[in-house]
């Protein structure tokens, strides 16, 4: 095992090389863990919806709680108009949550610790929300850069700030998730390395720290999935209900 704490983020291909139009699309360990997450989600939902009981079983209750959790999150932030996007937000939340949680298992790979994955999500959401805004409001959607009740003198500056903040949304959204996951896993690895190098004598201190950090990382894994989903809801809200 390499001591390099960044080694865990290495991507290597599994199986044959797949090249389409000169682009390498090989199946990698990242793809494998995406598949793991997806499979786990499907198994969970399959068991969660297998029985239709009035008094739910435990797994059914969990799936319904998850549903109600996401439903409440969407209705609180984006209102009733966001109902058609419920499935997307639900899938997004549960996928990121499972990827983060699977990443917490030792020797596993954290899909969301790669900037390209989170960036793909963020850009997709950004482009989708922007198109949605223009489709619903037409050119009035540009009003999102002109907050109401701002003095005319300040308006140009505010507009520039608003445009920058709007355009930086995909970056902040993707870097937040990616950096959190990467930093957490790097720290866990570093402290794990300290336990080995300090040995039986002084290794206990980084070990306790490592245990505490694992708890924190599980919290962060959930929290970042939640934050990602809720920010998506907020962006969606801006596009659906234009009131800035």
């Amino acid at each position, binding site marked *: 095992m390499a001591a390099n704490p960044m080694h865990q983020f290495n991507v290597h291909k599994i199986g044959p090389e797949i090249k389409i139009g000169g682009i390498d699309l090989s*199946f990698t360990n990242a793809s494998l863990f995406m598949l793991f997450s*997806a499979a786990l989600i499907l198994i969970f*939902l399959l068991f969660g919806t297998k029985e239709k009981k009035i008094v739910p079983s435990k797994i059914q209750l969990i799936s319904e709680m998850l549903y109600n959790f996401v439903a409440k999150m969407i209705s609180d932030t984006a209102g009733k108009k966001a109902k058609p996007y419920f499935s997307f937000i639900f899938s997004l939340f549960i996928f990121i949550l499972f990827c983060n949680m699977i990443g917490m298992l030792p020797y596993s790979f954290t899909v969301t610790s790669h900037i*390209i994955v989170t960036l793909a999500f963020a850009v997709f959401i950004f482009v989708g929300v922007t198109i949605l805004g223009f489709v619903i409001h037409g050119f009035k959607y540009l009003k999102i850069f002109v907050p109401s009740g701002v003095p005319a003198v300040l308006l140009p500056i505010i507009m520039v700030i608003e445009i920058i903040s709007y355009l930086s949304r995909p970056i902040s959204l993707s870097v937040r998730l990616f950096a*959190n996951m990467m*930093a957490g896993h790097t720290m866990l690895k570093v402290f794990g390395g300290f336990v080995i190098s300090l040995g039986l004598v002084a290794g206990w201190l980084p070990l306790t720290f490592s245990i505490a950090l694992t708890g924190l990382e599980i919290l962060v894994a959930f929290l970042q999935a939640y934050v990602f989903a809720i920010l998506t809801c907020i962006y969606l809200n801006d596009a659906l209900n234009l009131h800035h």
Partner: protein
Amino acid sequence: MNKIVGFLTFLLFAANNLFAAESGMPQLDPTYWASQVFWLAIIFSSIYILIAKIFIPKIKGNIDAREDKIRKDIEEANLLKEEADKKLKEYNVLIEEAKLSAKKILLDSRKKLNEDIQTKKEQVEKEIQKEIKNAEKEIQKLKINSSSKVNLISEEIVSNIIKDIFGEDLNKSSIKATVSEITKGYKN
């Protein structure tokens, strides 16, 4: 804290050597970027379709069914409660009516009884009065009869005594006069 540390590491590595995976962050090695996005798109869109078409409707249907059941049950319970209240009211009305009619019957029968008693009393009193009057008449008659009889007896006794003493009869009318005179004195 976590976020800041992560971001700083990211910036540091990004500034140092952007595309050197071996010495820095494997995340910035673009070799498998296309592959990652490609597989992410496939996997995420497939679970999105499965969730949107199968699982969300299932969960929603189940939750709705439960809420429906609960609402229906509550409605039914309310209906039953209303019916029970109605029945209770009906019962109370019936009881009230029965009480009233019982009272009425009681009053009526009491009145009738009183009247009966009154008439019977009056009749009896009348009869008693009549009887008393008859009795008085009879007593009067008896009184008169007895006094005349007493007179007769007295007259006979007197005439017998006189006959025994004097050996001869006395004028009967004079004896009668004397006796009636004496009895008059007793009478008053």
